């Protein structure tokens, strides 16, 4: 259980219905876009739906729903 806690790092690891707080994101163009869409460090994010096989997922953050790919979600690390 504890090992799992330390492994979990990014938004992509959240399970459906789970919540987390964004810690950091990459400062490339994708990261900047995520930032502009409200994925600001310190903001709460919750996983709305997630395909079990990965791929696309949908998160609720900053008062709206965002859909993104798993690899995009991986760039958002959690507290």
């Amino acid at each position, binding site marked *: 259980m504890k090992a799992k806690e330390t492994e979990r790092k990014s938004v992509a690891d959240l399970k459906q219905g789970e919540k987390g707080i964004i810690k950091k994101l990459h*400062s*490339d*163009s*994708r*990261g*900047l*876009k*995520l*930032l*502009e*869409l*409200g994925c*600001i*460090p310190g903001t709460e994010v919750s996983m*709305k*739906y997630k*395909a*079990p*096989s*990965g*791929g*696309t997922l*949908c998160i609720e953050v*900053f*008062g*709206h*729903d*965002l*859909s*993104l*790919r798993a690899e*995009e979600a991986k760039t958002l690390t959690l507290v």
Partner: protein
Amino acid sequence: MPVKSNPKIALIGNPNSGKSSLFNRLTGLSQKVGNFPGVTVEKRTGSCRLDEYITAKIIDLPGIYSIYARCNEERVAVDILGHPQHEYFPDILVFIADASNLKRNLLLFTQVKDLGVPVVLALNMLDVAEQAGIKVDVEKLHEELGVQVVPVNARSGEGLEDLKYLLSNPVKLHKPSYNVEPLAGKIITEVKEKFNIENSYQAYQFIQQGDSSTILSSEEKEYLHKLKIKHHFNSPGLQAKETIGRYKLINEIVQQATTQSQSGFRLLLSKVDKWLTHPVWGYAIFVGLLFIIFQSIFAIGNYPMHLLDEGFARATHQLQELIPDGLLNSLLTKGVLPALAGIFVFIPHLLVFYVIVALLEESGYMSRIILLMDKFMRMFGLTGRSAVPLLSNAACGVPALLASRSCSNWREKMNGIFITPLVNCSGRLPVYIILIALFVPFQTLGGLINIQGLVLLGMYFFSFIAAILSSWLLKFFTKCREQDHLLMELPYFTTPYWKDIYHIVKNNIAGFSLHAIRTVIPVSVIFWALLNFGPSEKRDQENITTYQSQLGPGQAFQHLAPDLEDSYASYIGEFIEPVIKPLGFDWPIGLAVLSSFAAREVFVGSLATIYSHEPASTSYPAYSIIERIESRINPHTDETPYALATVISLLVFYAFAMQYFNVLSRLLKNGASWWAPLLQLVYMTGLAYISAFAVYNLLS
């Protein structure tokens, strides 16, 4: 500053904030709107009377989330707003904000305000916000932001008069919301001096995004570039800092001006969404929805179609009696009128189709389809966005296909040639609908499911699979650095506005009809001539006149028939027969197919013209195209020429066949790359022929 008599007013806002609706309301133009991000991809202009004296020029800018452009179409906004000398630089900027997500909307708002453009805030979608439990205190927001705030409803038109009144009066400039000086004070001062500008944020934008400006000269860009190196300007880092700083400010403002309460409605929608985007049920619901849509098109369309058919038959009959016999009579009643009837009897089907698609577009469901299809489509080198043009009309404007990728020029060209014609929305579904309504019998399985709807569903999946397979093949041949992102906001479901639906449907039907009339009339005249004249022209002429003067209209058909075999049409038909026979087509179908390279829907018109020259097997409604097709018998086989195999073969052919006229016009437009359209034509026609051949032989 006094108000000009023709001020320039620009509209800006986030994607899907109702900007296009507002533009349409203000200008009376009907630009496509849709409830998914990115419907407006380039700037558009129109004009609007604000009051007796002032007529404003309205400029609609593409929807963006921030002033920082990530792709070409986003660059338009910063290019215009960052340069007061730009020809489109507005006298007043209207910022349209989605009240249901003020925070995100205000990011761009504070940016454009800080650029020093006089701006007013149009607060849209207050009804959506209310449904979500958000209350906005407009007065407070005005105080906090320091600009004029008008609540509007861009779709119903509420608040528009207030907005116009506001715009007909001078708008004051306000002090910036966010100070960029602490981020890069020194370099900003240098740029302000060099370019002689006052506004710090404008100078800062020169440094951040000057290199893609269309106004700055290359020397100026060079200067900015050197300056950035000299000061170790960390562009992305500073952008991040700025965004976070602005959001901090915005958070405070929004907390002051809005109250949020739990909303049962939002919870319900969220549950609905869970099903719609579910990895298994989502697909099932999508297919189920298509099934229901396609079923209802034919179930509803069938009865009015027969009424129209009968009406056309009567009108033709009356016209024939009214006009003296002769060439004109024959041209009208056996050439032009049947051809038009052949197409227009299917308007009821198309009406149902366009209404349903408009409802889907307006509701916000298309974004769910993008989300749902993305993973699947990516396996084939497409994005989820390319699923939309296959269904939606508004999406035609969206560069759906691989547009955001940075590909080599060559790959892009190859995509344009080989994939785009497969995924594009050049009215493929309407043509399927017409052909199916005409040729596939109106029968039901078990009294419930109609076969026509099933065939359409099959054709939809067929073209879908063809598109993804060819894209997948191309992936093997070309390498491409995939850099696109799916990242998009999922808009809330909204109740459609009937006025919008009405406009969308009206435009679609009018567009279809106009296009059909323009192509069908000339083609039917040519066909009529080919059918009525032959190599031994003199004899034919005599025959027509003598037969028609001797006999009644019903009998004239019988006697014209032998001549048909001596007509040019019949000779051409004989000539092409060896080519089309393997596809299961007889010569009338073959000729009609040839004519349809002008436009797909011409096919039905041409067929109707040919059949009205053949002996009628039924007596009174001999002018009815539908009856003629249903009662037609192939003289060689004693079977109907529209057996299932032939019909499917025909549909498959039309899934791929190109329209020569389109290709020709493109050839004339850019003569330099003449080989590309030609290659496309050969490829698509080949694909059409081979697949129709395969399908026919498989089924018969």
